[in-house]
């Protein structure tokens, strides 16, 4: 009896591996490979220091992806709130015991010699908790304002902790994702219109009341008028636009980007990595990457819709939205249509925290696909 149960379990893992969404995973591999090439180029044609380590991050991330995907969705469902609270705990630890990440931001946590950013984790935790809430909420209560109180707290509390670090970029992404999830769950249009109104009113107040830090203000001002401060914060945007614009249709060729090769573009291996792609591979390469991301998002949404449980739907949808907003904000920033907020390009920008947490997050999408018929 004991032996058969054990055997069934093993079989189940094997079956689950077979059921993984392979197209979805192929797209992830393709996008990540673009990243490896760009990091190779960013290091002036060297695999060190970035490309090699990024591949290592990728390997860890894929492992996390598979683990997350095959653990039973009922486990994740049961422990959603607990995981959410753990995420908040890590954020609080960062506030009190975090490592300065420059500009007075405390975003890093040092655990066992590894540094990572709990805010990366917090995004997924928030998505899980909101999804769990709506699974349990009766259909008739979705439209009610009382039904919105708890998810609003779940979203805003986590976003606020991240904002306090301070990390305006990630906090905004969490707020946007949370809003999109509420919409998906069925909250009425009118409430969104109301919320938009509140934001429009609150923004100038927050701006003037000192809630928004000076360096954050400076980024917005610089974004609105980069030429005003071409030697300071405007420098990144101007140089990035020069890199992208000079790439033209076909690009300057692999390893031939003058702007990025000559280190004109700062942070070229992390936040501004897209400018290397656009410069060396041109419009062709840039659009290709956008299409790859588009396909990844589309596949992810298909998985979300295919799921029969509300939890699964919202979980997959939330994770995909987080990633999509990252892509949009990062590319928008590099192309000069959004302010510089220090958001990495998922799967492409150099960085262990970002790579591993993105892959682990996408693991939940795969999990939803594997368990799409599981009743909760």
């Amino acid at each position, binding site marked *: 009896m004991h032996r058969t149960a054990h055997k069934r379990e093993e079989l189940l893992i094997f079956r689950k591996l077979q059921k993984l969404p392979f197209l979805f995973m192929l797209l992830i591999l393709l996008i990540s490979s673009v990243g490896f090439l760009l990091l190779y180029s960013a290091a002036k044609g060297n695999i060190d220091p970035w490309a090699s380590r990024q591949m290592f991050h990728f390997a860890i991330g894929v492992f996390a992806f598979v683990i997350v995907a095959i653990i039973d969705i009922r486990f994740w469902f049961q422990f959603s709130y607990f995981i959410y609270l753990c995420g908040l705990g890590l954020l609080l630890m960062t506030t009190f015991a975090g490592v300065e990440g420059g500009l007075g931001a405390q975003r890093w946590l040092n655990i066992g010699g590894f540094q990572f950013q709990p805010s990366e984790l917090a995004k997924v935790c928030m998505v899980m908790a909101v999804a769990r809430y709506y699974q349990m909420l009766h*259909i*008739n209560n979705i439209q009610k304002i009382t039904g919105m109180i708890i998810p609003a707290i779940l979203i805003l509390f986590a976003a606020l902790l991240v904002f306090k670090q301070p990390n305006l970029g990630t906090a905004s992404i969490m707020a946007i994702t949370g809003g*999109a999830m509420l*919409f*998906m769950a*069925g909250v009425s249009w009118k409430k969104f219109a109301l919320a938009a109104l509140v934001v429009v009113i609150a923004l100038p107040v927050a701006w003037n009341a000192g809630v928004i830090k000076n360096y954050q203000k400076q980024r917005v001002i610089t974004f609105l008028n980069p030429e005003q401060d*071409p*030697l*300071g914060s405007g*420098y990144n945007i*101007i140089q990035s*636009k*020069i*890199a*992208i*614009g*000079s*790439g*033209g*249709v076909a690009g300057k060729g692999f390893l031939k980007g*003058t*702007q990025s090769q*000559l280190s*004109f573009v700062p942070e070229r291996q992390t936040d501004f990595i897209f400018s290397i792609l*656009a410069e060396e591979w*041109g*419009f062709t390469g*840039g*659009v290709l990457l*956008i299409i790859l*991301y*588009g396909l990844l*998002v*589309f596949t992810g*949404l298909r998985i*979300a*819709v295919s799921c*029969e449980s*509300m939890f699964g*739907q919202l979980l997959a*949808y939330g994770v995909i*939205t987080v990633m*999509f907003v990252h892509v*949009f904000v990062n*590319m*928008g920033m590099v*192309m*000069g*249509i959004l302010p510089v907020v220090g958001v990495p390009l998922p799967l492409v920008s150099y960085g262990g925290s970002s790579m591993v947490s993105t892959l682990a997050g996408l693991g939940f999408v795969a999990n939803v696909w594997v368990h799409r018929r599981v009743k909760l």
Partner: protein
Amino acid sequence: MRNPKAQKRFGFGRRALVLGVGKATLLTALAARLYYLQVGESEKYQDMAEGNRVRLYPVLPRRGKIIDRSGQVLATGNVQYRVLFTPERSADDIRVIEKVAELLQWDEGLFMQMQKKALDRSVSPPILLGNAISWEQVAKLEVHAQKLAGVVIDAPEVRYYPYAKHMAHIIGYVGRPSKDEMEDGPLFRHPDFRIGKNGLEGKFDDELQGKAGVRQIEVNARGAFVRELSVDRGTPGADITVTIDADLQRFVIDRLAGQGGLDVEGASAVVMDIQTGDVLSMASVPSYDSNQFVRGIKPDYWKMLMDSSDSPMTNKSIAAQYPPGSTFKPITALAGLELGLITEKTRRYCPGFFKYGGRKFHCWHRPGHGHVDVYGALQHSCNVFFYSMAAELGIDNLAAMARKFGLGTKCGIEMPGEKPGLVPDKAWKRAMLDKPWYNGETLNSSIGQGYLLVTPLQLALMTARLAGGRQVMPRIILPSQASASEMVMLDSGQKVFLPGEEREFSSIEVNPRNLAIVQEGMNRVVNMAGGTMYTNRLEMSDFQMAGKTGTVQVLSNRTFKHTPWKKSERYHALFVGYAPVVNPRYAISVVVEHGGYGALIAGPIGRDIMQEVYDKLGG
């Protein structure tokens, strides 16, 4: 009827579609933006990135000049040529250095030093090869430009003060930003960037600074200059006109510094226009050479300044506080007249001392002045006359009168570092020393001793108000039409007027008859035989001077009797005055630290300065 679950799923699908379309739209927008940058605007950006590549350098704006009331330049920028070198990191570099060495006639040591610097890759280019080189040297380098790849001659403006020693305390100086200030941005890290550190340069730094521009330079792949793409020269700083007369200022400083005879070093004088409040001269000695600060001060010069016991860095006119001594007596007299304690007919007997509370308060003239009225008391500076009404007058009434004439608070001059002086009263003593006020202390205060403290600027202001009877306020900035609106913002609470417009000052709330009595007393000090200043009077019929001398005890009489007559224990010599006696126009104050007697030391300086005022500016 649909079951709720199906409806839930249906809703999800429809909303997923809406948001999916939204996402697709946003991705399309990114692609469109990419198209705009890489296809539409590509040529422009290719130009910018071409042959490589644009670098941005700050262009320092021309710093505003500081000009005196007659148009003489007090602070300006001097062009200095210098040689900069950006190594190409090739064998040519050494040949270039050798050529420069030959043209500039370097000795072996300098050549080795520069060569080392140029080849050291940890030194970020450009490297400074020569500073403040002559025009002939510039010409030589220009001729050989072909062989000097990477060498650039530039001509930064260096702040220059033509009247450095005479104006240092007023103008201040500019210097490199401190480490903290360098955090304020790349401009602050520019090696030629200077900020105002002291005086008007510090106070009006924002106005003088202007706004930096940007030069877009195209460089080749090795970072060497190719051509200038565009240049925004920024906005030059605003010029500032001061109320000072440079020639008068020079005379005053030289007169104060050239004390002859005594080893006097610390002294100060202020000349003020009674009608407008314009400070025509504000002198403090010893002074320092502000030009030394511009390029970074040499340690031994700095040490010399810091070690001097006469604090040359301090603007004594506004930042040093002295007891006013007998120059305060007009205020005591006026307070007594206003309260009706004395009239112009009141006479007191001076036997050389005054007994109060079992203590003897001495007059400076030990044999005594005999019977004196208020005129005589001022003319001869008789202490006893003032002692005799002090107790009845009370410190609070005396303090109120002193404040009416500008003592005890900052004058609000547009300069940093002004001290407020001190006018004591009962509440002050209770609050600061937690002790009651004793009437004996009022006796000391009535002759300008005790706790009373004034700055030389306050003394000049007091004199201007005594002479004009109006609440004149001092100023050192002449507002111009262009900068008038800015001036209002700068001086919190102080109204600023356009040129040509008469500054309006309300009358001081005292009986004009009483004020006239005090003015007559001050007239007799100078112009009636027996007055303390009679030997130093101005003998021009249309420009006579009134005034008051003062001698301030640094140590009490008892102590100094038994100690040698050392410089640090000698009296401070003071003089205040105004001229002409009728329709007064100019007020003056002179303080000579440890100078000795006011009538012997400060008085003659005051006379000479007033004579110069007459010669320079007319009656």
